[in-house]
């Protein structure tokens, strides 16, 4: 422990901590821009300059370590003026049109300028020409808004291990972007949107589907239904001033209904359906491997709900593709079921229906456009909105969100169990699958307190658990005494580590969950900004609370799913399921 004084406050802090960390621990704010928690500070933007007594120059708080006895002034005139100058310089090179900018609600640069009281831009710096890159389905880039903080580079390279974005060129002419400042579709990118999630300004955003959705809602010939992913309800409130971790399921439902959707449904329904299919698939693979000694039964099996992960495997691990569950993601299962089963129920043709998804994710925009996702004969999911876009639409509809009464989702595709809610969290798909698979095999409930598999919860990058299977039902006696080993990874960098461990034989599992984004869908690239670990943990708790608030906690108890099997699909992995709910993957050449 060492001792420093910041703004007159004595602080005790672990050796090796930075001035920024010390200040934060004492509740003292220092503005930052290029800094990202848990990552090596770049010290590039100089927005965090502070004064240290005895030092010749101002220092960057994010990258300067504390030393014993240090006396720091955050708000002396020198530091204030210097920080202001840094931001003024950024503004002078920035193609700013805050009135119309996509980012104007939560722009960090705009906030910094306003917090510092900048009212005129004194420098007339050279600006980059606007250049819009909308070459990919999920994202739009505009380099003229980029302030070169490199957060996107850090996330794309270090957290996701993709490296689509990198500084190009040198000096003033440096451009942050894909190879040779070209378009994003010229390089390998999985559309996860983590770059958009960390970008402080309007330089990377989701590609908006708002206009398309309004047009569909305004078209009287169309039946427009909406599904919302489980992660939305734990985050949407942040856009309307609620603290992170506030559950707004009921208000969100009312808002959607008032916006004019013909039915408000739930991706959760399809998550329960996914568990029925995927759980059965896992058990079938285990049987083929253990009883039939079938070498083609690829184990471990991987989840396939996260389209960024699926693309990652297609690009980097083609040899593992037959290990991926053939189940489509809940979003796509929902679309396929809505445009067949539900369309028949209400006497509509698939082409007269419009399915809108609200997703925490930009990769879902890409997934909906995959050519094979048209099991109903037309595109199964027409438009995908991010959580942020839904918030914008709610504002555009002039709804006072916080005043709205709670609503209930519609039957039948709006009914779900708590197991579906936890799809939003890292470890959640695994837990939901175990709740069902264990019960199928043993006839007894998963022996875990409150049905939570603790070792696979939380923000540890790679998690694992083992489950002893005893006293099986007769049909599953081949699993008697077996130990089911599972692992969970979130963030593609962690997924890569886990895959390498499996490839080298260092680790062995039966079932593995991978989610593209840190924390799972609650930390998705389309969620309200800014998402740090504190926010992730609050959303995760909200999701578990939502799960525990449900009467039904297990997917196989969902009566609407049971009815779907009885009246339409037949049985899990049956012929119709295969047609509608399963898919295949193909190796992609890296770009």
């Amino acid at each position: 422990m060492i001792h420093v004084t910041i703004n007159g406050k004595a602080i005790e802090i672990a050796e090796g901590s930075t001035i920024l960390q010390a200040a934060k621990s004492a509740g003292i704010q220092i503005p930052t821009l290029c800094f990202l928690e848990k990552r090596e500070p770049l010290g590039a933007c100089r927005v965090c300059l502070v004064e240290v007594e005895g030092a010749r120059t101002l220092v960057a708080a994010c990258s300067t370590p504390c030393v014993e006895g240090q006396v720091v002034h955050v708000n002396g005139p020198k530091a204030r003026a210097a920080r202001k100058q840094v931001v003024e310089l950024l503004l002078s090179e920035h193609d700013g049109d805050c009135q119309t900018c996509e980012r104007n609600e939560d722009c960090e640069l705009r906030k910094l300028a306003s917090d510092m009281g900048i009212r005129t831009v004194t420098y007339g710096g050279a600006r980059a020409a606007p250049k819009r890159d909308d070459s990919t389905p999920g994202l739009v880039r505009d380099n003229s808004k980029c302030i070169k903080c490199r957060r996107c580079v850090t996330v794309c390279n270090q957290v996701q291990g993709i490296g689509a974005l990198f500084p190009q060129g040198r000096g003033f002419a440096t451009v942050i972007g894909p190879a040779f400042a070209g378009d994003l579709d010229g390089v390998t990118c999985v559309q996860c949107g983590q770059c958009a999630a960390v970008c402080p300004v309007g330089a990377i955003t989701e590609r908006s589907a708002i206009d398309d959705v309004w047009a569909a809602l305004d078209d009287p010939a169309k039946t427009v239904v909406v599904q919302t992913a489980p992660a939305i309800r734990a985050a949407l409130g942040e856009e309307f001033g609620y603290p992170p971790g506030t559950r707004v399921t009921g208000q969100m439902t009312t808002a959607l209904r008032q916006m004019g959707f013909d039915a408000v449904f739930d991706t959760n329904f399809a998550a329960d359906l996914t568990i029925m299919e995927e759980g059965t698939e896992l058990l079938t693979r285990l049987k083929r491997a253990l009883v039939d000694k079938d070498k083609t039964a690829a184990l471990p099996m991987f989840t396939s709900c996260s389209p960024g992960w699926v693309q990652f495997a297609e690009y980097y691990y083609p040899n593992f593709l037959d290990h991926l569950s053939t189940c489509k993601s809940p979003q796509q299962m929902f679309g396929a079921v809505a445009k067949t089963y539900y369309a028949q129920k209400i006497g509509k043709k698939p082409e007269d229906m419009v399915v809108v998804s609200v997703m925490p994710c930009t990769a879902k925009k890409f997934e909906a456009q995959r050519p094979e996702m048209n099991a109903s004969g037309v595109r199964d999911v027409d438009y995908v909105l991010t959580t942020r876009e839904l918030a914008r639409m709610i504002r555009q509809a002039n709804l006072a969100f916080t005043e709205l009464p709670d609503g209930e989702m519609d039957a039948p595709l709006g009914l779900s169990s708590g197991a579906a809610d936890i799809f939003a969290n890292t470890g959640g798909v695994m837990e939901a699958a175990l709740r069902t698979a264990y019960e199928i095999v043993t006839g007894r409930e998963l022996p875990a307190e409150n049905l939570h598999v603790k070792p696979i919860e939380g923000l540890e990058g790679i998690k694992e658990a083992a489950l002893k299977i005893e006293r099986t039902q007769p049909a599953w006696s081949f699993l008697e005494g077996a130990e089911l080993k599972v692992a969970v990874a979130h963030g593609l960098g962690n997924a890569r580590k886990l895959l390498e461990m499996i490839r080298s034989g260092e680790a062995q599992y039966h079932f593995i969950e991978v989610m593209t984004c840190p924390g799972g869908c609650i930390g998705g690239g389309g969620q309200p900004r800014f998402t740090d670990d504190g926010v992730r943990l609050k959303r995760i708790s909200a999701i578990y609370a939502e799960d525990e608030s449900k009467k039904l906690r297990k997917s196989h108890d969902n009566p609407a799913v049971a009815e779907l099997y009885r009246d339409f699909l037949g049985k899990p992995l049956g012929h119709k399921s295969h047609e509608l709910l399963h898919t295949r993957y193909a190796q992609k050449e890296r770009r």
Partner: protein
Amino acid sequence: MTKTCTCACAEAAPDEAELMKRLDDVLAEQKDKPGGLIPALQTAQAIFGYLPESVLRRVAQAFDKSYSEVAGVVSFYSFFSTVPRGKYLVRVCLGTACYVRGGNEVLRAMKDKLGIDVGGTTPDRQFSLEVGRCFGACGMAPVLMVNDDLHQRVKPAKIGELLEKYRAPAQEARP
């Protein structure tokens, strides 16, 4: 049709597959060396005369780096070129003798006339511009070379004229 050589050398270019094989040999040797990327890119440029996309993607794969990262490195250093060399490689000497006798003004005039920087190539792929360090003709400084032709006592004002001779009716080799 015979293949036209895009580099500054006089011999006919070996075919693409042959060059790629040479590249792969280099990559196999370099890829595990720390800091091997830049030397590998330099060798690749020596083999191909420039760094086409197909070569960069190969290098990226070998080093297990993203294409954007390799592109970032290539675009950071001015000695890498991603466009084929022009038909004529112009090298302006900036060795001591030439420098003292106005090599720099010659270079500035050359940049002006060609509209490119050092390391660049004109859009019509006629000229590439480099600088040299003493061509052993100090007595005649300032000098420059266009492919194998040595031009001595070059006057900045006469650069346009000098280039015209090469530019004139294309096709045939010059002069």
